């Protein structure tokens, strides 16, 4: 099994294209961070204003408003993370997992592998593990890039950032407010680092979905495209389900929202509010594990029976 893992690892990381996704994530962080650095004074003034707005009286806020943890936190800010996590990282993870079987099927290399002694189950497991680890690596690399660029451009300091009540009232909700809390640097780094690790779990679940689709499709683009399609549909349904309860028309979407993959991909969300709701992290973690188990088992069963005609 270790040999198979090593072979899959070599196949993935000897390909230059694999590094393009890591490079794009770094570029994305830079593209966001550099203008903020250029307009640093204006951004700090806005943050100070947010911090004192509505509190009455005259406030004088001193100290550093923009510091290293700002960038990794900004990448997880709600409007941005939908695109970054649910689309970009999901796409990169799905491309690798989707190509893992379907891509090798269409290129004929799957045939070359499967006339060798390792069982199909072991081959599938090795591909799944490597695709999952790669998805985690993508999330961690985004975190590393955000931390690295953040500290390089803004230096050390505490985190001053808008508090999020929750992502559309999702599992991360509760415990938050609508202010601008200041989190000490040590705690901020711990919370953010753990958030990126948990983001990796969400990306790994996406990878198992893509691998499942890859186990019976003949082209990697099909597996990747369908995975993204599922995520987008799931995201749309989840958004409809997060509309306030007064809108009765969306009751159905509220009903299905807790079961959607995208709902639980944000399992790190409770770490971004003042009071961490660990039960919600665990709840979403279990849902992701369930998704991975179901997709993994179904994909394995299909792959074992698959006719290799290409």
């Amino acid at each position, binding site marked *: 099994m270790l*040999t*198979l893992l*090593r*072979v899959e690892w*070599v*196949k993935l990381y*000897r*390909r*230059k294209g694999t590094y393009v996704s890591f490079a794009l994530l770094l570029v994305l962080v830079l593209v966001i961070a550099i203008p903020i650095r250029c307009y640093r004074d204006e951004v700090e003034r806005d943050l100070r204003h947010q911090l004192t707005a509505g509190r009455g009286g005259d406030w004088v806020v001193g100290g550093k408003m923009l510091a290293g943890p700002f960038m990794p936190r900004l990448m997880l800010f709600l409007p941005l993370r939908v695109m970054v996590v649910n689309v970009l990282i999901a796409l990169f993870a799905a491309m690798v997992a989707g190509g893992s079987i379907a891509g090798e099927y269409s*290129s*004929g*290399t799957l*045939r*070359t*592998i*499967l*006339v*060798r*002694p*390792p*069982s199909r189950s072991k081959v599938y497991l090795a591909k799944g593990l490597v695709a999952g680890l790669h998805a985690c690596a993508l999330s961690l690399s985004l975190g590393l890039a955000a931390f690295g660029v953040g500290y390089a451009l803004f230096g050390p300091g505490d985190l001053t950032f808008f508090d999020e009540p929750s992502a559309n009232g999702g599992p991360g909700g509760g415990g938050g407010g609508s202010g601008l809390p200041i989190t000490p640097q040590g705690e901020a780094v711990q919370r953010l680092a753990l958030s990126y690790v948990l983001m990796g779990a969400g990306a790994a679940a996406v990878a198992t979905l893509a691998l499942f689709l890859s186990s019976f499709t003949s082209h990697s683009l099909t597996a990747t495209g369908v995975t993204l399609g599922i995520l987008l549909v799931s995201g749309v349904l989840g958004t409809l389900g997060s509309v306030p309860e007064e809108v009765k028309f969306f009751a159905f979407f509220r009903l299905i929202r807790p079961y959607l993959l995208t709902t639980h991909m944000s399992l790190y969300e409770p770490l971004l509010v003042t009071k961490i709701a660990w039960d919600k992290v665990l709840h979403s973690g279990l849902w992701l594990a369930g998704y991975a188990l179901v997709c993994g088992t179904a994909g394995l069963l299909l792959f074992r*029976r698959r*006719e*290799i*005609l290409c």
Partner: protein
Amino acid sequence: MEPIVQCIGLTKRYRKLVAVNGLDLTVTRGEVFGFLGPNGAGKSTTIRLLLGLIQPTAGEALLFGEPVRTGRSRILRRVGALVEEPAFYDYLSGRKNLEMLAAMSGGCPRARIDEVLGLVGLTDRQHDRVHAYSHGMKQRLGLAQALLPHPDLVILDEPATGLDPAGLIEIRNLLRRLAANEGMTIFLSSHLLAEVEIICTDVGLVSRGRLVARGKVADLLARGEQQATVQVDDPARAAAALGELPYVTQAEAADGLLTIHVAADRLADVNHCLVQAGLRVSALIPQRERLEELYMAIMAETADADAAAR
């Protein structure tokens, strides 16, 4: 003789299409077996069934006396295979591809990789990426990966495709050497009948998924009647004399020569008859039937039989 490859009533259906139709075939140890047939006859499907890439609809494929269905991993440790177009990871070097495939086959020493690269004439290009290889070079690499684990059985599907004349001769000599010196059993399908005739000890002809002829190449070529050219002092009188013999079906004198069609084992009787008739025979030259002619004849007979059955 120990049976190495056995097909027992092997059948593969794709909806209404019967690709392999109750195939019964045995190849014993040390044979160099040529598996012949027109496009769509079921050759590649049979090879895929033998390697467990697809599952039979009925019947059983056995290698080394063990059903492929149940003993695939054990069996494939003793098999080297090249199925249709050789497929490799083209962003890796030829050598790296072999190293990975060797690892999947249970590992083999570096010296063995050097050896097979030398056998197929790729030593000088081993470090080039496969995408820079010509089709013929990929074919050689395909052969190399099949020989890597030092198999007892080599299954090759169209191994000569894309090779230049020098490459054809090298591969032909290599296969003969492997069979003669290393006791490998070789099962190869090919369209190059002249090559098969030179390389193979035995052949099987398959048409519409059924085996229509099977035997030693020499025996099959000696079947039925053959053509011979006779140099005799009076061809016209000789034609008349031979025309009365039951085993001579045709005797034509032209340009000072006599051309006859005679039962394969009766050439000596022809000579005796001519001498008895007082004719002076200066040469009796049998025109050896080629495998190509035999193939065409058998395929025509099969087509006639199929038409009559309908």
